[in-house]
């Protein structure tokens, strides 16, 4: 190895440590007893309290929150992540299909309405959105949590782009065979889009799982918390002080909230990168 390639590796190793070490330290610290953490600070090596901490956080009521366990929050996070991803894909595929394959009068204005969602991130309409959902009686429901989030301009553009690249002959052939518009969509377009769908599902699962502001104002009852919202509660408990701060549980919760989306990204790495790079273009 020459000198410049050693420097290259050195830079990369520093970068990798910078990105990885904080999470490792969080994990290692979560496996120690609260007294140890308080006495010695953050830990770089795992300790002997792994089972104890995670068992209490995951299964014991009152372990982290007052009533719910991290298992319940995990379930809520999964519902949000999967509902968000599936909802976005279904809704944007349908809309993209209509826009690409049909000639209809309102196509252009409807396209612009979809485009406008890019201009209206949740943050700029947060209070009225909350009111709408509250008026519809959908606070603290899965539907209220997921449905307002699933409109997607980027998803629609992505599938629109893809459908345009599908050869016209396919539709001609399908029509000769007497396929209805729905049949063509389900039997031909959806199977053709399999890889695209998988890539978008993976990205959107991660994005959905990580939603923060919307669930934060939408959920008032503990049993509806997602893990990411649990983080906020832990933050408040730690700030209030009290007896012995349960830092190991706070760290354990950050690890639990991180693990599922990280696993998804690692397992489906290639699809994930493809989906991210292509859907944002």
């Amino acid at each position, binding site marked *: 190895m020459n000198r410049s390639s050693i420097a290259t590796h050195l830079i990369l190793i520093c970068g990798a440590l910078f990105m990885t070490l904080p999470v490792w330290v969080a994990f290692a610290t979560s496996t120690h007893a609260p007294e140890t953490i308080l006495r010695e600070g953050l830990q770089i090596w795992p300790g002997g309290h792994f089972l104890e901490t995670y068992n209490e956080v995951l299964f014991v009521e009152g372990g982290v929150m007052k009533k719910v366990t991290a298992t319940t929050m995990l379930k809520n996070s999964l519902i949000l992540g999967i509902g968000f991803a599936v909802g976005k894909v279904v809704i944007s595929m349908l809309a993209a299909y209509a826009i690409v394959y049909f000639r209809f009068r309102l196509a252009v204005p409807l396209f612009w309405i979809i485009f406008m969602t890019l201009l*209206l991130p949740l943050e700029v309409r947060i209070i009225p959105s909350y009111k709408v959902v509250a008026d519809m009686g959908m606070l603290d429901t899965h539907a209220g949590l997921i449905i307002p989030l699933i409109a997607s301009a980027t998803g629609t553009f992505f599938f629109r782009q893809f459908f345009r690249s599908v050869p016209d002959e396919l539709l001609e052939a399908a029509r000769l065979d007497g396929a209805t518009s729905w049949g063509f969509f389900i039997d031909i377009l959806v199977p053709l889009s399999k890889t695209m769908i998988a890539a978008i599902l993976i990205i959107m699962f991660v994005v959905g799982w990580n939603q*923060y502001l919307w669930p934060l104002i939408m959920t008032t009852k503990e049993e509806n918390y997602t893990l990411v919202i649990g*983080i906020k509660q832990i933050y408040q408990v730690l700030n209030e002080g009290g007896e012995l701060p349960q830092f190991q549980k706070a760290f354990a919760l950050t690890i639990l909230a991180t693990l599922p989306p*990280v696993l998804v990204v690692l397992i489906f790495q290639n699809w994930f990168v493809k989906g*991210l*790079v292509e859907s944002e273009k």
Partner: protein
Amino acid sequence: MKRVQYEHSPIPYLFVAPQIIIIVIFFLWPAAQAVYQSFLLEDAFGLSSQFVWFRNYSDTILSGAWLQAAWFTMIFSFLVTFLSLGLALLLAVKANEVIQGASTYKTLLMWAYAIAPPVAGLMGNLMFNPLIGDLYGFMNAVGFDFDHKLDPVDAGFVVVLISVWKQVSVNFIFFLSGLQGIPKSVQEAALMDCKSSFRRFWTITFPLLAPTTFFLMVINITYAFFETFGIIDTTTQGAPGGATTTLVFKVFQDGFRGADIGGSSAQSVVLMLLVLALTVIQFRFIEKKVHY
């Protein structure tokens, strides 16, 4: 446009309906409400309201607190964008150069994409916690009089550090895919013409990455404005004295905690205009493609 299409029928409306209904109910209607409420002044009990033209705008936006938040958001966005892009570009160029261990590096550098901003915020918060956080101890040990609970600059440092950390991986992924898209022939030609890898980077590679960089700049500014809410909310909460309050955090604070609907709505409308400007810039340049 497709050459072959289905003719007029009600069917396409059924296909777009779910998307459009959601957009109208949860996007357009609330946005219109925000604009409407920004012109109203409600009494303390929310029983009556009065049309006050632009008073909410002049009251909130000319207030010291809003200007402070706007100023902080500008500096914050600049630092986060500049630092996370710079770091990601460096790492992507190096990861594109190495042969041994390339895929391991790639995985280690991109996986943090999956971590939610508030989770990163809480982790960082704990690490800077004076009771246990070794980063807090370290900053003081190396000679800074470090206290992010009291000192605005230190608080800003913590928020910027966590926000940059969280954003490096996205930028890295896009830069790396941009670098891999540069044709081998161009790279080989550059290698023959120019020995210095430093000059080769600035004269050949970087200009070719310009479209990616520009696109990422817009993404990063948007991130710094909006998505860092989760980080601020789990670290400083805008303290000390509003020194780390971003514009989005202030909308949330005034609207939900302060129950100042009119003022919060006026701030929302200003943010809408800002997003509009960013989107216009983005589409303008993407159409032209940034080229030297």
